[in-house]
């Protein structure tokens, strides 16, 4: 019995120790990408946090190895038999107690000092960013279950995809119209909760151009799991182009005859003036009014002053994702979402009257023109 116990507990131990390494190797071999990772910061706020995290991990690993090592050593070294004589009865040692109180306290100081420094560094919103320009002000408004982004200095509104220029500090002022949410773009900054009755602040500046996913990180009801968003980091010129497009995209512009050409500087790569008379688009526009879409969704980014129930649809035709970061913005997905929002996001506040496939096709055609 003794022998069998001894032989099968050692492999077990090895299994447990090797497991973490195996996991790491497995993940590395899979060659996956981690676009939402906190470990690959792509902005200054996240850099500060990451440096601090690495300091902490450094000390944690040292302590882990030493203490677990001491534990395992003691288990192997002092293993006794039932009939062994009584070991020496030691009740304690004051000097040892002092040593193992003071050393951890000293190690903690190595973590505590940079922690407090970083707390103050991240609390201070830089007046100018890496690009030397003043911070871009964006208002973030959480909704069940989507994000609204307002640019007060530029007079534009958008939803679920926040455009920012690379290198510019972004100064976020945040709140919610309903329950608590938490705004989190892991590669740029830590989380910040949003409240209905107090404004919270966060800032970051992005170092790379691209589309970076973020998520709601505070439980906010049935669709908390599908309340994602993207930060679109543009080159400054592209950002200025996007702003100009959005500023031209007023509700009035949306209501112009469907034959009106799309602005020439549209982001759509194959943007050609819409055919003089596209009956499908005209029908879609009509449906947008009659199928109650317009009751909750504003079509234009410019001058949309009041917060509406549904996300602003300015530029919906060229957005990367729909349904708060959850579906690729393809014609098929858009039609499916318009027809069956409850099937895609059970409990979502979007309730639609029955929409036929033909009607959905027309609505999609119209929304595609909104660029």
């Amino acid at each position, binding site marked *: 019995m003794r022998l069998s*116990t001894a032989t099968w*507990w050692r492999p*077990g131990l090895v299994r*447990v120790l090797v*497991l973490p390494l195996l*996991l790491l190797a*497995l*993940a590395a071999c899979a060659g996956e*990408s*981690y676009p*939402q*990772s*906190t*470990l690959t910061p792509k902005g200054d706020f996240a850099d500060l*946090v990451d440096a*601090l995290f690495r300091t*902490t991990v450094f000390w*944690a690993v040292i302590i882990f190895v030493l*203490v677990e090592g001491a*534990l395992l050593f*003691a*288990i192997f070294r002092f293993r*006794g*038999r*039932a009939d062994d004589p009584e*070991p*020496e*009865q030691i*009740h*304690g040692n004051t000097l*040892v107690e002092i040593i*193992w*109180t003071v050393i*951890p*306290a000293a190690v*903690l100081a190595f*973590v505590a000092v940079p*922690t*407090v420094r*970083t*707390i*103050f560094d991240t609390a201070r919103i830089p007046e100018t960013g890496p690009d030397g320009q003043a911070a871009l002000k964006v208002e973030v408004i959480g909704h*069940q279950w989507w994000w609204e982004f307002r640019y007060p200095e530029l007079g534009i509104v958008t939803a679920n995809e926040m455009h920012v220029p690379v290198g510019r500090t972004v100064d976020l002022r945040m709140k919610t119209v*309903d*329950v608590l949410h938490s705004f*989190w773009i892991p590669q740029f900054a*830590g*989380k*910040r909760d949003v*409240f*209905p009755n107090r404004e919270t*602040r966060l800032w970051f500046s992005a170092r790379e151009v691209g589309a970076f*996913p973020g998520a709601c*990180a505070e*439980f906010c*009801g*049935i*669709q908390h*799991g599908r309340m994602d968003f993207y930060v679109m980091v543009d080159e400054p010129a592209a950002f200025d182009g996007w702003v100009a497009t959005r500023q031209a995209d007023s509700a009035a512009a949306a209501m112009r005859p469907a034959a009106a050409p799309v602005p020439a500087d549209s982001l759509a790569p194959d943007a050609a003036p819409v055919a003089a008379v596209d009956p499908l688009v005209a029908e879609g526009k009509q449906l947008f009014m009659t199928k109650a879409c317009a009751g909750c969704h504003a079509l234009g980014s410019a001058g949309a002053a009041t917060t509406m129930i549904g996300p602003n649809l300015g530029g919906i035709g060229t957005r990367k994702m729909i349904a708060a970061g959850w579906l690729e913005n393809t014609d098929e997905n858009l039609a499916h979402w318009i027809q069956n929002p409850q099937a895609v996001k*059970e409990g979502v506040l979007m309730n639609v009257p029955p929409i036929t496939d033909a009607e959905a096709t027309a609505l999609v055609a119209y929304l595609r023109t909104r660029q």
Partner: protein
Amino acid sequence: MATTVLDPAHAGTRSRSVLVEWLTTVDHKKIGIMYGASAFVFFLIGGLEALLIRAQLAGPNKDLISPEFYNQLFTMHGTTMIFLAVMPLSAMFFNFFIPLQIGARDVAFPRLNAMSLWVFLLGGIFLNASFIWGAPNGGWFGYAPLSGRQYSPGVNMDFWVIGLQILGIASLAAGVNFFTTILNMRARGMTLMRMPMFTWSTLVTQVLVLLSFPVITVALIYLMVDRVFGTGFFVPAAGGDPMLWQHLFWVFGHPEVYILILPAFGIISEILPVFSRKPLFGYSAMVFSMAFIAFLGFGVWSHHMFSTGMGPLADSFFSLATMLIAIPTGVKIFNWIGTIWGGSIQLRTPMYFALGFIAMFIMGGLSGVMHSVAPADLQQTDSYFVVAHFHYVLFGGSIFAITAGAYYWWPKMFGRMLDEGIGKAHFWLMLTGFNLTFFPMHFAGLLGMPRRIYTYPGGLGFDTYNLLATVGAFVLAVSILVFMWNVVRTWRRPADAPADPWGGATLEWAIPSPPQEWNFTEEPVVSGKDELWTLKRAAGVRTLPEPARSDGRGIHLPGPSWWPLIVAIGILLFMVGFMLPRPWAFPFGPVGLVGFVITLVGIFKWAYEPPDAHATPH
């Protein structure tokens, strides 16, 4: 069965049925067993909820479970494991072993003790009954304003806010009881600094209960009147403040964490010396570090709220205060290693789990220090990294220690040894399953996976870690089945465990297994720490002779009583009255009123019941 017993001709005689005996008992040992049995059932229910959660998250975009049901599952999993599993499993050991360890015949208030049990059990059944109508779905932390009537209009959160108040009554009553018992009923000679460490941990835990549960009670009453009577404590439109809820909740919630882990510390501090055959290293350092942890536990609550943007001064204060906790916690870990160092380690099943506890708790402690680093916590909070962290302390810590305690004290409780071979298989399965489930969650969290999401998209790198965690959860489930198999298998054997199977140091090992109703035929007198070891050393033996069973003649014990159960039913009805629709609702309807009257009459009759009204003659 019940009618014969209610027949006055039979009341108070030995013909009382087994059922009545258990329903009316005030024996701390029977109450402890009932705490354990019901908490284990709730533990299985909570585990089943966890398995459903893991099945849903096994891969991206799964729709095995609807989002609504998923939210109910994780809310009930957390609530169940904290209030209905870990706390009452600790209460099982408090009940059974505190009187035995301090040499007493019962707790200070035996009928109050029975009432705590019934209130807890009825509250737990009430909470789980919610699945019929719609279980709580706002998270175990019930953040306002989501938990308010406007955003949670159904009965779901009514069950939660009322269920937790009911459970709070049980905890507070037990807290008063054990605090009083330990301070007043110790055997002659047992000074505070001679108490066993498990008794110390129980005492400190009750202080935490007594100081923290009133806070959550106040918060829950605010939330309940917000929901029922339309007040606005947490309703922003009415000038209420969701931050107030968070502060109140975590002023309770953080001490609650120590309420869950300190009893585990106590259990481990009992087992390590016995199986190292060497006294606890640094007894007084262990006592003071535990008291210091409990004290600091009331000054760190806002580290759960770093992401709310409290400002750099508050963040710094709560960061540093939290880091300080690492020092006494480290002292405890070092003293445990110091205890086995130089000992003669006997690797029996309880020792396996105790050593597993230390190994796992170190990891949970280290990730805890990472969370105290406020800016880094902004990335980790509400991500799976936190889920990994607190399962390392709650499962790797509390559950491993409770399991160690179960193997250690089982022979004393039931007079049977659990099987060593099956026990070790249980250990290795549990250790493997546990690490396979929760270690990958560190990575999922650092890679940006938020908590409490019912599904996740592919392409973010979460898939592998989640699949591993799901496999691990099922291995864990198998390990629990192995434990149950161990219990069933050994139950068929005759009850033949000796009084002192492990070479124990504390008083519970001086009396027969299982103990007789009166525990100690003669009240013990204590001359120092590790009293039993002193006696054995003086006698020059490894084990004392088997103690004789006595007939208990001349020993007076409190008699059984129906009133604790009746009062518990009254409290349940009174509280349920708050969530019923009119015309049933309190104070306008009959249910709450009936409950109120039952409670009042019950307390009155209880107060005037002679202490030995139904006592069996000895």
